[in-house]
């Protein structure tokens, strides 16, 4: 049974797309695998209502950032795999840069501000 997550809901809302696009940038994945991978990498600290992944994935698909394909699975029902399109790769890179810049600024503030020369 999974432990209680430390971050859930709102804090994830703005960053869900960044997480999804980053994971899909590494390899094609299906919904369950995406949810599990986020949990695994964050050691259970990040967890979202898994059903809410799908509106996000479908939105990304409508925007042409990901494309999907049904693939049969030997372990059970077929799975719908998502992978980044070229546009999606550009967007993933941009989101990542934005996140890194943002977290750097936040860290700067938490550390007491940028050193003036």
């Amino acid at each position: 049974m999974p432990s209680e997550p430390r971050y859930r809901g709102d804090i994830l809302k703005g960053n869900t797309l960044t997480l999804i696009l980053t994971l899909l940038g590494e390899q094609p994945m299906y919904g369950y695998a995406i949810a599990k991978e986020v949990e695994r990498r964050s050691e259970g600290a990040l967890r979202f209502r898994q059903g809410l992944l799908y509106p996000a994935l479908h939105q990304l698909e409508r925007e042409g950032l990901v494309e999907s394909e049904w693939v049969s699975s030997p372990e059970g029902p077929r799975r719908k795999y998502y992978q980044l399109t070229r546009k999606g790769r550009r967007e993933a890179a941009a989101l990542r840069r934005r996140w890194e810049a943002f977290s750097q600024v936040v860290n700067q503030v938490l550390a007491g501000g940028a050193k003036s020369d």
Partner: protein
Amino acid sequence: MTSIGAYLDRVCHRLRANPAAVEDVREELRAHLGELIKEYQRAGVSRPEAIQIALQEFGEAQAIRGWLDQVHQGDPWWVLRLKGLGTGMLLGAMLATVLTLAAPLQPLMGRLWLESGGELGRAQATLNGLLVGGVAGLVCAGGRRFYAAWLLGSLAWLVEYLVYWVQSIAAGMPVPDGGLGMMNAVLLAPVVGGFFALAVGAGTAALLRVLGRLRPEVR
């Protein structure tokens, strides 16, 4: 205790997306839930309990439905059905008219028992095209329950006609209308039988809803 089917029904209930997309969503979510349930079962939880935990973990059906609805933003279900009906009727009538007017097709039309000569023949062919095309369009725009109700009604109508036909032959009476009668029966089965079945299905769904046994509308 919520079942997976009831949960998925709530997620997909009147989702404004085309029926194929709704079926796609249903299958995708069902597959995900299946994996979650297996995961909890592997951790030693009983299946009924695993289902409840998985559904809770998955999120509130209404919330997921709301987000999916916003993303897909298709037409309401009844507009989809109307579109299907209208498009099907138009295509059916056009096809029937072309078939009856095209001279090289006359021998083929005769073989298919479609009366094509004269104004009455053309009018009947166009009417059949309207009806069958409309039914086909409606079915194409419908969901799973809709197909099932339609199919059952159509089959019932066909069986009833066949029984009548066999009874007539067995009693030594003339076969009603011969091949043309059979052709008309086949064409009318989805219209008469299908509509009847839908009416019964919709009535039952409404009654069950009144009785508090949640069943979405026949789709």
